[in-house]
């Protein structure tokens, strides 16, 4: 396929003797919004961290535009510049203001001129509704605001793919909404995203592709209608049933 961006095949990951990922295969095409759902400890986050090389895969391979990212001579830094990531704990740089957080990547990594980086940063901060806060430091912001800045920081790098690792799990219910609506907007605009989430309503709403993981393997994947309405796998059905009961 031409527009294939990331292809994961036979991915394995061990932490010591504990195998967290057992033979995971999946594809991400351009414009896809893939959500990964599943119970805690099923390997969702590890999968995402392997894709961004924050964890080194123990086996299998991940292809980025057909090139293996764990191969020799592959520069993980310039790869990460193209594959953005938002974390559960935001990880904003505490020593910088909001605007500096969004500028440091483009200026230091992409070597863009400062004025251009500032313009871009403002553009994306506006998009997430955080432009009034450009002079604030992360410690002065609420969780939802921090996550929106983190999204703007990732967007300022203009990545091909954006990974979200449980972006709303550390937020209280009132703040979840503001972050999800930003992400929904991005999905509408056609940004390729891989999202690990426990927000089932959101997953059903925005994704083009849903992956259900359990015990380090992909149990079932498909369109949101298929997964949420007619799950074929027993475990998927069981998992979703428990979620709906809550």
């Amino acid at each position, binding site marked *: 396929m031409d527009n294939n961006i990331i292809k994961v095949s036979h991915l394995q990951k061990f932490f010591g003797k504990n195998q967290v990922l057992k033979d995971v295969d999946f594809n991400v095409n351009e414009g896809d919004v893939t959500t990964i759902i599943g119970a805690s400890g099923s390997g969702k986050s590890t999968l995402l961290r392997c894709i961004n090389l924050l964890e080194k895969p123990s086996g299998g391979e991940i292809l980025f535009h057909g090139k293996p990212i764990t191969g020799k001579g592959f520069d993980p830094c*310039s790869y990460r510049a193209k594959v953005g990531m938002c974390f559960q704990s935001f990880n904003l740089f505490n020593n910088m203001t909001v605007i500096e957080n969004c500028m440091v990547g483009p200026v*230091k*990594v992409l070597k863009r001129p400062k004025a251009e980086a500032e313009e871009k940063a403002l553009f994306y901060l506006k998009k997430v509704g955080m*432009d009034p806060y450009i*002079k604030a430091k992360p410690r002065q912001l609420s969780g939802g605001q921090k996550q929106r800045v983190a999204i703007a920081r*990732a967007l300022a*790098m203009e990545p091909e793919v954006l990974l979200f690792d449980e972006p709303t799990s550390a937020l209280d219910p009132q703040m979840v909404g503001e972050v999800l609506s930003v992400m929904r907007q991005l999905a509408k605009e056609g940004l390729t995203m891989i999202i690990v989430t426990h927000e089932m309503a959101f997953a059903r709403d925005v994704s083009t592709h849903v992956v259900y993981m359990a015990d380090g393997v992909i149990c079932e994947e498909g369109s949101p209608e298929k997964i949420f309405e007619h799950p074929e796998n027993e475990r998927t059905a069981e998992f979703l049933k428990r979620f709906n009961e809550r």
Partner: protein
Amino acid sequence: MLPSDFWGRIVFILEEYGSSFLRGIGTTMLIAVVSTAIGCIIGFAVGIVQTIPCDKEENPVKWGLLSVIKFILTAYVEIFRGTPMMVQAMFIYYGTAMVFNINMGMWTAAFFIVSINTGAYMAETVRGGILSIDPGQTEGAMAIGMNHFQTMINVILPQALRNIMPQIGNNLIINIKDTSVLSVIGVMELFYTTKGIAGAYYTYFEAFSIAMVFYFIMTFICSRILRVLESRMDGPDNYELVQTDALVLGEGMHRYNPKDKNVSTNGDYRAQRAGNFNENQREGM
């Protein structure tokens, strides 16, 4: 003639030897400040090298090289932390002159000894400072494509520096006091000067009272200056909202006035905003 009362003698000593005291203070401060600065640079360099991550299997050559360097640096830190500065001063200044015929000069020796001592302590402080930064900061930096060096310079070290500022202040104060041991190699700092002055009229109590006061003033001023620097680094506690939409700033502050057309149009805008907000809220449910 030497006055008979305490205060009289103090005044007499100050009048007679004021300039000597000042020169002693200058020497002490110069050595302490410069050596603390150089020591910090050494400490940062060593601390950074000590925290370079390296995978043994991925890059065995780099790993081997790093291990050797780290061993040497650890040895440096342990040796200089583990021996008295006074002994080091004698060893380096007189010892090297006798055996290797290196005459490094008193000033060079003074700066060298104090710097390298501070460096040994600072290395551990910096290492601790780097380790104290949340690993999430490193991950955040890596996720936007920064390499180890860029991450250190832009994200980790500025935060580590802030965290270890109190310790840098400690080191500066310790150095101001500990330059007194350099008197054993003949550096004319405050202690050596005072000893000379005290011996001239046999006024140990008075001369050293003055020295105590001077030492205290020096350390106290330095600790205050460092406090100011720290709060400067923290930046302001408040921030300004940069808002082109003045309404948001004034939200809840306006009183409704039906005669004022501006307010009523604004009111519509606000209703619209409120509508959007509710929609957003629902999405999140």
